[in-house]
C-alpha cells in the first residue's frame, strides 16, 4: 500500500484530511451562526454580510489566497497582531485550514441556512413560552431540528476543503509535511515530466475520500432527519 504512492504523497493525504477536518469543525459554529443570522435576522448590512460570505465562491481562488497572504501573513494587518498573541496561520497547516475553511464557508452557510429557513418558528416560540431564553431555545430546539442540514453542510464543506488548491498554495505555500495538501501535491506532480501517474493516483485518493464523505452525508442526513422527525 505504502509503495503505491511515495511517502510524501501519503503525508499530503494525511495533512489534507487533518486540514479539511479542522477547517470544517472550526468553521462550523461560525457557519451555523452566520446562517442563522442571515435566515432569521433583519439587520442593516445583511446584504453585505451575505455578499462577503459568498466572496470566496466568486473570486478566483488565487485572489482569495493573496488577500489572505496580505492580511493574515506575518506582516499583514491581522497576521501581525495575531502572531503577537501566538496565533500564526502563515505557512502553517493552520493557515491551510483557514484557507480551506474560508473557501468552503459559502457552501456550508448555504446548506445550513436553507435548513434553518425550513424550521417552523412556532416551535421556537413554544419553547420561549415555556421559559427558555433565546440561546437555550436555539440549542435545544433549533439546533437539533437543523442537524441534518448542518451535517450536509459540514460534509460538503469537508469535500470542498479536500479539493481546495489555489487559495491554499498562494497563502501558505507548498511545504511538504507542513502545508503540502493533496491538491498541492497533485499540482507539483503535474509541473514536471513524468509526474502524471502519481498525480492520477492522488486524484483517485482525493475523489475516494470526498465521495465517501458525500455518501456518508446523504446516509447520515437521512437517518438524522428521521430521528429528528421522531419516526
Amino acid at each position, binding site marked *: 500500500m505504502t509503495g503505491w504512492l511515495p511517502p510524501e504523497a501519503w503525508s499530503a493525504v494525511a495533512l489534507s484530511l487533518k486540514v479539511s477536518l479542522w477547517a470544517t469543525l472550526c468553521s462550523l459554529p461560525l457557519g451555523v451562526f452566520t446562517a442563522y443570522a442571515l435566515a432569521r435576522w433583519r439587520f442593516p448590512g445583511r446584504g453585505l454580510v451575505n455578499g462577503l460570505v459568498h466572496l470566496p465562491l466568486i473570486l478566483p481562488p488565487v485572489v482569495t489566497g*493573496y488577500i489572505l*497572504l*496580505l492580511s493574515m*501573513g*506575518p*506582516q*499583514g494587518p491581522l497576521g501581525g497582531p495575531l502572531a503577537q498573541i501566538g496565533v500564526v496561520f*502563515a*505557512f502553517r497547516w493552520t493557515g491551510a485550514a483557514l484557507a480551506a475553511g474560508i473557501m468552503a464557508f459559502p457552501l456550508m452557510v448555504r446548506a445550513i441556512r436553507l435548513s434553518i429557513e425550513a424550521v417552523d418558528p412556532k416551535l421556537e416560540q413554544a419553547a420561549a413560552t415555556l421559559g427558555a431564553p433565546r440561546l437555550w431555545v436555539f440549542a435545544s430546539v433549533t439546533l437539533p431540528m437543523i442537524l441534518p442540514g448542518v451535517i450536509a453542510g459540514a460534509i460538503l464543506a469537508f469535500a470542498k476543503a479536500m479539493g481546495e488548491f489555489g487559495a491554499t*498554495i*498562494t497563502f501558505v*505555500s*507548498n*511545504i*511538504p*509535511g*507542513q*502545508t*503540502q495538501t493533496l491538491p*498541492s501535491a497533485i*499540482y*507539483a*506532480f*503535474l*509541473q*514536471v*515530466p*513524468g*509526474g502524471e501517474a502519481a498525480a492520477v493516483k492522488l486524484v483517485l485518493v482525493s475523489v475516494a475520500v470526498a465521495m465517501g464523505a458525500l455518501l456518508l452525508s446523504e446516509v447520515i442526513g437521512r437517518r438524522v432527519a428521521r430521528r429528528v422527525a421522531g419516526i
Partner: protein
Amino acid sequence: GEGRLTVFAAASMKNAMDEIAAGYEAETGNVVDVSLAGSSALARQIQQGAPADIFISANTDWMDRLEAEGLINADSRFDLLGNAIVLVAAKGAAPVDIGPDMDLAARLNGGRLAMALVEAVPAGIYGKASLEALGQWDSVAPMVAQADNVRAALALVAVGAAPMGIVYASDAVAEPRVDVVGTFPADSHPPIVYPAAKLSSSDNPLDAGFLAYLRGAEARAAFERQGFAVLAQE
C-alpha cells in the same frame, strides 16, 4: 547534524530538487523541505515574510525585485541554472529549422501554438521575445494559446490539442508524446537564468552548505538529467 532547511523553488524544478534534497539529506543528515510553486507566488510569499531560507526563481525579474527590497542576501545570489526554449510537436514531426526564414504560422496550418502566458510567465516571455527577434511574432500571435504555466502548454501539445508549442528544453526532455523539433537560438531571447539566493531573514546555519551543494557535482548531474544547463561553477 539534524538541521532543517526550507527551500522555495520554482515548480518546474521538482524532479531535480527531489533528487538533490534526497542526496543532501543522505550526505548531511539534515532535512530539506522544498516548497514548489510558481515563482511569482513564492516571491510574494517571501515579500510577506515567508519562513524560507533559500529561494530559487525561474526568472530574474522576481529575484531582482526581492533583491531591490533587501529581502535576499545579494552576496549569496548566483545564477544556478540556464535553460533553452524549444519548439515541440507531436511525436514524429519533422524538425524545423528555427530562424527568420521559417514560416511558423504556415507550419501551424491553422492549429494553435501552445505557450505559457506571453506577458506573465517566464517561458512565455522568452518565447515571445524569440519569435519577435525572428520576425515571426506578428504572424503567429493570433494562433498562440497561452497556458498558465509551461507544463500546461506542454500538455496541450502532448494531448494533441495544439500541433506545436514552445517550452523549456527541461520540460520536453521526459515527455514521450512529443518531440523537440527545434531549439531557439540563445541570442534570440534574454538569457534564461534560474538565480538562487539566501533570504536576508534566514539565519539558518545550513544555508551556505546547501547553496554549495547546489553547485556540487551531484546536483549538477541531477539538473542535467532533467535537461537544465548548469551555469553555476563549483
